[in-house]
């Protein structure tokens, strides 16, 4: 357990040869040429990772499988909407999977209540821009730069707490630090990120 976490502590560091693949370019090829070969590579890389992340976040294997397949279907369909200046390829795919997970939770709730399925809206896409005023390309660069200023320790607690959705006591025992430290570290990381992002506003 400890070793696994030690290995994953090196976030932002070199990720090995796999990191060389330009996923954004592959998405672009799917958009412009309906390139099946490019899509296959995206699928083989991201589908198992979506499934892995969804299971970590509490989905059953079946739910995670469904979300992974639906997300990759959406990647094909929405490839033309991907804007590399706005977000990284992995972040964009994450938002697709996230929205599908939200939808599936709601659909299940609706079915449980035996209500007409088609009547209620899909989850609004939080990533969709109503904020047209923002210069998005500039924003992506600023966000990228801001994240680099967080320490590996800060990124780790944010990831464990928010993305892997682990409870604070669990994070404390995983990292071998007191519960109070977990809480304060998360708070500091959040405040720091906010401050850095605000700096040149």
């Amino acid at each position, binding site marked *: 357990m400890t070793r696994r976490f030690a290995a994953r502590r090196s976030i*932002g560091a070199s*990720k090995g040869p796999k*990191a060389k693949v330009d996923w954004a370019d592959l998405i672009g090829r799917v958009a412009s040429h309906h390139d099946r070969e490019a899509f296959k590579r995206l*699928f*083989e890389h991201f*589908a*198992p*990772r979506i*499934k*892995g*992340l969804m*299971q*970590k976040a509490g989905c059953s294997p079946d739910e995670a*499988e469904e979300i992974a397949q639906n997300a*990759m*279907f959406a990647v*094909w*369909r929405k490839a033309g909407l991907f804007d590399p200046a*706005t*977000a*990284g390829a*992995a*972040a964009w*795919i*994450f*938002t697709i999977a*996230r*929205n599908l*997970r939200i939808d599936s939770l*709601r659909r299940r*709730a609706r079915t*449980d*209540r035996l*209500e007409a399925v088609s009547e*209620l*809206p899909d989850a*609004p896409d*939080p*990533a969709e*821009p*109503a*904020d047209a005023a*923002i210069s998005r390309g500039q*924003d*992506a660069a*600023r*966000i990228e730069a*801001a*994240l680099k200023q967080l320490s590996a320790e800060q990124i780790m607690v*944010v*990831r464990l707490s*928010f*993305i*892997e959705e682990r409870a604070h006591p669990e994070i404390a025992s995983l990292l071998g630090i007191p519960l109070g430290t977990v809480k304060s570290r*998360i708070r500091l990381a*959040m*405040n720091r*990120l*906010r401050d850095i992002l605000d700096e040149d*506003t």
Partner: protein
Amino acid sequence: MTISHHPPEDLLADFAVGKLEEAHQLVVGVHVAGCPRCARFVRAIEQLAGAALEEVEPVATAPDAFDRVMSRIENSPADITTPPLASVTDHDDVPPALRKYRIGKRRRVAPGLSMRPIELSGSGKARAFLLRSAPGSRMLEHTHTGTELTLVLEGSFSHEGGRFGPGDFDYGDDEVDHRPIVGDEGPCLCLVAMTGDLRMNGLLGRLIGPFVRL
């Protein structure tokens, strides 16, 4: 529009990863859509989530997963068609994110105070509604048994936490004693997500309390 009250960072992070329950997701989402500062924060968390996705231990998908997705692709029309927005009659000036929802009829709650419930899927515990209060009205003194997220859409209100105008976000929990006063400039329209009940303090509150099942 100058926004001076924002959601706390942990709420924004939960929003970014889709962890909030539906009513909260809705209220925070409408704030984020109109607040470049919070939108930037949310995108930063999404970026971190993307990095986590890259590094997570992969779990093999079903052997036929790729073929199934390809056959869906081949059997679906090429273009993404966005469904037309449902025509909304009788709407308050609701933000675009809300027009996707079915919004119930306006209900009078108290003098100068009316609400319209927003129909959710029922996956969460919190309710969402639009709350309209008359200009200059002093809302009933109340406390909460749960949490309350409020986003101002039009007009303003003030309480001990400051003045809240369009786009401002207010977070109340059971430790907060609210006595908001609505600004004189016009009616105040808010989008509210609430868990628990609203408890009216004072005699008037006790009298109308039974009707205030917001």
